[in-house]
């Protein structure tokens, strides 16, 4: 299939009524690339992926829910401690981590909110986006038009994965930013006591918060690859999302069964909470690095599995 045909096909498809703005812009990128084959060629499809992913109502609703979590936690803690009692009284057991420090320093709301959303909300949102990536297109009948653009399946898959990773980062930053705003509004901010008991300035505390947010986003990369792989297995978007989120829950249950402790270090959520190691002084890197290695491994295995599946699959929808 030549470049020209591809562009024509893409243009034709949008004319046919698969009215997808994306297809147009992808074709546009392809046409530009066809002229000079400049490196921006890949970015055309990537940019259109980002735009469609982030502009969907579904995505915006997910981000809205994520942003609401810190607001809820902040208001609840504020009401609970209005009479001067400390939050998480009774040893701080049971509630999300870092909750007892929130009253004294609003910055800790960032960590409390991330600790509260990381086990369920964040990965669920990522699972929805990743599960929908390929299967959703197939379900809507738009996958074959996408493939007509001369990007090739590998490149399309990479763009889909990149868009999912972009969503991971955006979702985490939304939680962190919302928590920071709520924390600064409702609680005092100032010098930060690390969980090791040493004191650091507010500026450095902010840097650590940013680091934690990026690390949490990186913690989701393995799961995103898993979701993408599941998404290549089916033509039903709903099935892919449900399977991905179901896998998440199953793996998290397995991670809590002590008799299965031998496999725990190889489960993708096992080191998720290690982000709190970034709040120690000095930072305890062991589990942080283990988590990053594990996520890279999951991304490599399931990313290549998704590639193997997607590039050999018969596209019927």
């Amino acid at each position: 299939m030549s470049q020209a045909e591809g562009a024509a096909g893409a243009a034709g498809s949008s004319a046919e009524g698969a009215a997808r703005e994306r297809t147009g812009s992808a074709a546009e990128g392809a046409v530009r690339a066809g002229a000079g084959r400049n490196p921006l060629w890949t970015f055309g499809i990537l940019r259109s992926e980002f735009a469609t992913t982030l502009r969907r109502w579904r995505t915006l609703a997910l981000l809205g829910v994520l942003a609401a979590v810190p607001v809820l936690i902040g208001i609840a803690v504020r009401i609970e401690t209005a009479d001067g009692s400390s939050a998480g009284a009774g040893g701080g057991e049971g509630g999300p981590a870092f909750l007892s420090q929130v009253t004294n320093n609003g910055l800790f709301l960032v960590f409390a909110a991330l600790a509260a959303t990381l086990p369920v909300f964040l990965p669920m949102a990522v699972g929805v986006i990743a599960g929908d990536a390929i299967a959703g297109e197939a379900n809507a009948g738009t996958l074959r038009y996408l493939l007509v653009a001369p990007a090739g399946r590998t490149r399309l898959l990479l763009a889909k994965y990149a868009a999912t990773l972009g969503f991971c980062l955006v979702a985490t930053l939304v939680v962190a930013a919302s928590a920071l705003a709520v924390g600064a509004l409702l609680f005092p901010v100032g010098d930060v006591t690390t969980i090791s008991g040493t004191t650091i300035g507010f500026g450095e505390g902010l840097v650590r918060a940013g680091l934690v947010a990026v690390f949490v986003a990186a913690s989701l990369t393995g799961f995103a690859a898993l979701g993408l792989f599941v998404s290549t297995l089916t033509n039903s978007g709903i099935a892919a999302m449900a399977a991905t989120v179901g896998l998440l829950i199953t793996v998290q249950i397995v991670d809590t069964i002590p008799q299965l402790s031998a496999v725990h270090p190889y489960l993708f959520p096992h080191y998720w909470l290690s982000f709190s190691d970034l709040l120690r002084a000095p930072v305890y890197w062991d589990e942080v690095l283990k988590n990053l290695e594990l996520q890279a491994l999951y991304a490599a295995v399931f990313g290549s599995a998704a590639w193997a599946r997607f590039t050999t699959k018969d596209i019927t929808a």
Partner: protein
Amino acid sequence: MAPNDSAETNGTAARPGRRKAARYIVPVAVAGVAAATIGLVPALASSGDPDLPKITAQELIEKIAASDTEQFSGTVKISTDLGIPSMGGLAGSFLSGAAEGGDGGKDASSADPQAKLTELASGTHTLRVAADGPDKQRLSVLDDTSEYSLIHNGDQVWAYDSGSNAVYHADGKGAGKAPHGKEQAAPEGVPTTPKALAEQALKAADGTTSVTVDGTARIAGRDAYRLVLKPEQKGSTVGSVTVAVDAENGVPLKFTLRPSSGGKAVVDAGFTSVDFGKPAASSFAFTPPKGAKITEADDAEAEGHEKEARKAAEKAQGDLGKFEGEGAPKIIGKGWNSIAEFKTPGGAALPSGASESEASKGVPAEAQQFLDALGDKVSGKFGSGTVFKTRLINALMTDDGRVYVGAVTKDALVAAANAG
């Protein structure tokens, strides 16, 4: 990868089936390489034991004794497996009976060092230690999302539990006399550094032990000799004690205690990373965070606390086969086979009431029955009694209220009871 790879797979390939299958080799290969790496790298790393000049066991022990390293910081991993299945409470009571007895009535702060450090007596924990001379030490227990820090700086002792944002503070003379003042970072109740453990083991070793140097090892990136202590007497539950000693400065880096019954080590404590440079001064500084709940230890309490801690420490030493100290019970035998004999008031006691009988008073009768159900009934010339077993310490409680405790087998306990 090429723009037209979709065209390729849409039928131009001669054998599409095989091509399809071939692509799945990639994820399988990635997973295989990863599995191989996880399996092989530790094996390769451990095979590279360093070449060090020969040293006799005596020289090595002298090296440990002469070691005067006062500045270090590092991470310690400690695993304890006394073989008490799903009995966290009982495991705790082995070491914390005294502490809990002493604190009974007062609502204990979650930042209280005694309560916290006895948690180390079971399971696996990651600790961070730092020391800068006798006046500045710090010990942190790393939990999932929180950290427990014990900071000793001059005459101030702070404990901070970030999970509950609670602070424990002791200062002045009370703290000065408190066990924090000893040379180890955490002498409170549980010896946590490999050095403290090694010193206990060497003390117990006197005359009844074969001490050998068994090759070398690399611990936390440093060359070390392995000193192996084996009880020569029969009847001890201690199989062997291995201490890895830094070849350069004689600091024990790793301590492993294996039971004679084989299997997993009972105590395995070692540095996973260590630095003998001066730790940052900020490590020893602590300002209570705003709004934290602060529990002050007044002098009287601190003194009592010290006593409790010392008693708890005796019990910890008991773990290494040694009972001694104030209000000492009668000791039968010597070395590793020492058996402590003592009478309990009221004729019954927890096996943990080793040197602290008040502790057992608080135990409700139901708990007592429950504990009885756990033991093995034995009988002999002494009458009959119950043996409580762990992988290391066994205790025989006779029906007439005598208790024999030691790191020895059941038969040795019965023999001691018969002789007594």
